[in-house]
């Protein structure tokens, strides 16, 4: 009975993982394919990687994307953290619920609408005050910040709600003024949440197509937009090479992070056990 159930579970799991990873594996394998035709294997080659490095359009777009992602993740994290703290820690004020709701609304709003409305805003502002001057990196960055603040604020809110409020009260009781407490206690304790928020914003910005396609201009375009427009003209293997590189970087990052976390958790558990043992 039990082994039969295990069998079902294993089969289900096998199919699940196959669906997730076979396409990616195929893509990676074909990035090393000599032939131009992406569906038939001929022989091993690194020529598409070579082609990728020589393709200035893609390299430029990748750099712009990274720049936008770093800037917008950083600004979104700063603003989102402040918003999250304000919404959780401030005493009840009139319209607090409304503000909380308004904060998460963009998360469920179709991105097409967000993109369109931002485009209207930028065009109107350009006519009124002459800024932003055309559409490009600035407008994409602003759009991404707007979008990411919501996610950061939600992450910070849930972290703060789970945190013992008496830590901040204790700091105040010991003579800390509110601003000091923010830097001494609150921010250090929500650092992991801040990092998650930053990473999430970074990823959201890096692979956004919809918002960027509304507010980007001819002068600058992001990596996802370039890939998208290239695909329309037919799949070329240098895109496979690019994808393989990205997957490789992400995989290495994840492995290192997991290893570090595992080490830290083990040390933590050992400390607790030692403290308990001492008590006896």
């Amino acid at each position, binding site marked *: 009975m039990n082994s039969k159930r295990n069998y079902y579970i294993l089969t289900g799991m096998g199919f699940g993982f196959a669906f997730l990873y076979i396409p990616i594996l195929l893509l990676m394998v074909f990035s090393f394919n000599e032939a131009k035709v992406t569906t038939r294997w001929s022989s091993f080659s690194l020529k598409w990687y070579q082609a990728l490095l020589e393709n200035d359009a893609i390299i430029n777009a990748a750099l712009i994307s990274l720049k936008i992602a770093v800037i917008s993740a950083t600004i979104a994290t700063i603003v989102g953290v402040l918003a999250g703290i304000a919404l959780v820690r401030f005493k009840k004020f009139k319209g607090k619920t409304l503000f909380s709701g308004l904060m998460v609304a963009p998360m469920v709003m179709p991105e097409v609408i967000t993109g369109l409305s931002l485009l209207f805003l930028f065009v109107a502002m350009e006519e009124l005050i002459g800024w932003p001057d055309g559409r490009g990196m600035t407008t994409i960055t602003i759009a991404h910040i707007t979008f990411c603040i919501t996610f950061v604020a939600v992450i910070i809110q849930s972290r703060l709600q789970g945190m*013992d409020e*008496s*830590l901040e*009260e*204790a*700091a*105040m*009781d*010991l*003579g*800390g*003024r509110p601003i*000091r407490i923010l830097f*001494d*206690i609150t921010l*250090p*304790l929500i650092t992991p949440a801040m990092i998650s928020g930053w990473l999430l914003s970074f990823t959201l910005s890096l692979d956004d197509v919809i918002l960027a396609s509304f507010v980007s201009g001819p002068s600058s375009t992001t990596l996802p937009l370039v890939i998208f427009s290239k695909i329309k003209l037919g799949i070329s293997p240098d895109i496979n090479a690019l994808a393989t590189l990205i997957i490789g970087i992400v995989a290495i990052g994840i492995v290192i992070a997991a290893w570090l976390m595992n080490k830290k958790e083990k040390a*933590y558990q050992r*400390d*607790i056990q*030692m*403290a*308990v043992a*001492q*008590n006896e």
Partner: protein
Amino acid sequence: MEPLEEKYIDPQPWLDKNEKPFLEIRSVTKKFGDFTAVDKVNLEIYKGELFCLLGGSGCGKSTLLRILAGFETATEGSFFIDGVDMTQIPPYERPVNMMFQSYAIFPHMSVEKNIAYGLKRDGLSKPEVKTRVEEGLKLVQLSQFAKRKPHQLSGGQQQRVALARALVKHPKVLLLDEPLAALDKKLREKTQFELMDIQYKLGITFIVVTHDQEEAMTLSTRIAVMNQGKIKQIGTPTDIYEYPQSRFTANFIGSINIFEGIVKESLSESHVVQSEETQCDLLIDRDSSIHTGEKIGVAIRPEKIHLSREEPDKQDFNTLRGKVLDFGYIGNLSVYNVKLPSGKMVKVSSPNQNRYSKHRVTWDDIVYLTWEPANTVVIL
């Protein structure tokens, strides 16, 4: 006669008309919406006291403490420390410190840094902070743990860090919210005495919140018994135990038997109380505030009743006859539930002085319960 050494004099400043209270709470009320958590509380606490707020869970003890620390604002009323009105002073400027029930030790700082935090906020110089931290660590015997992180400490050690962190600031009043509740029984008993010792050494006024009556009795100079946001009685542990003024206090602290009755007659030395529950008259000591015809409760603690199988011949004692329904052996004493003919149950406890008693009282024995009128408590 030789004068007693100062140490042996039990100071009772609350009895001295010339003493001024150090902390004065005047008619403090706290409402959360329609709910009144603290209801017109008045308290006068004197310098160097170890004062306990005792009450069941949810009776408003922590809320009152949080008002004193400044985390809650009283809906009405005010309070003074050393003559200064604290109502408008923010928490970070009040001369009080609090030890939180959760200890609230900063998890990202070492023991040393935790203790130094408050001193640095006071703008003390580095060497001064260092000396005070060392003093604090020594006081709670944690010197060798200075560099540890909080998660590397046991519960008892964390409790000491929290205590040291608050004490090194030399507050005028230290507020402790259930300081021992998270410790196991043995450690709690040991820590109780350490806490008293530290308080005595430093002479700081302590206000301790607890729901544990034994803890309150052991620790405190005086106890305020709270119920539903109100103070029911204030007094020394002895006062509270021996002279409870209300049914609530009598039942909350220890256990007690209460017989309902009517004062039938007032004699020169005593009153005679008629009670349906005992089906005989009870004697209580004369008290000018008791009048004939009044309805009162005659209360007696279980350990003040003598239990025997032979009928005693003490005329001026109260004597009841009943059947043992149940008894429990606790080791140092045995507790009996005795049923009177009226159906009323009476609780009696008596010490087990001999290891094996031949004439041990057991189930279904007919027993006589006697007690001296002077030991009764009258509850109006």
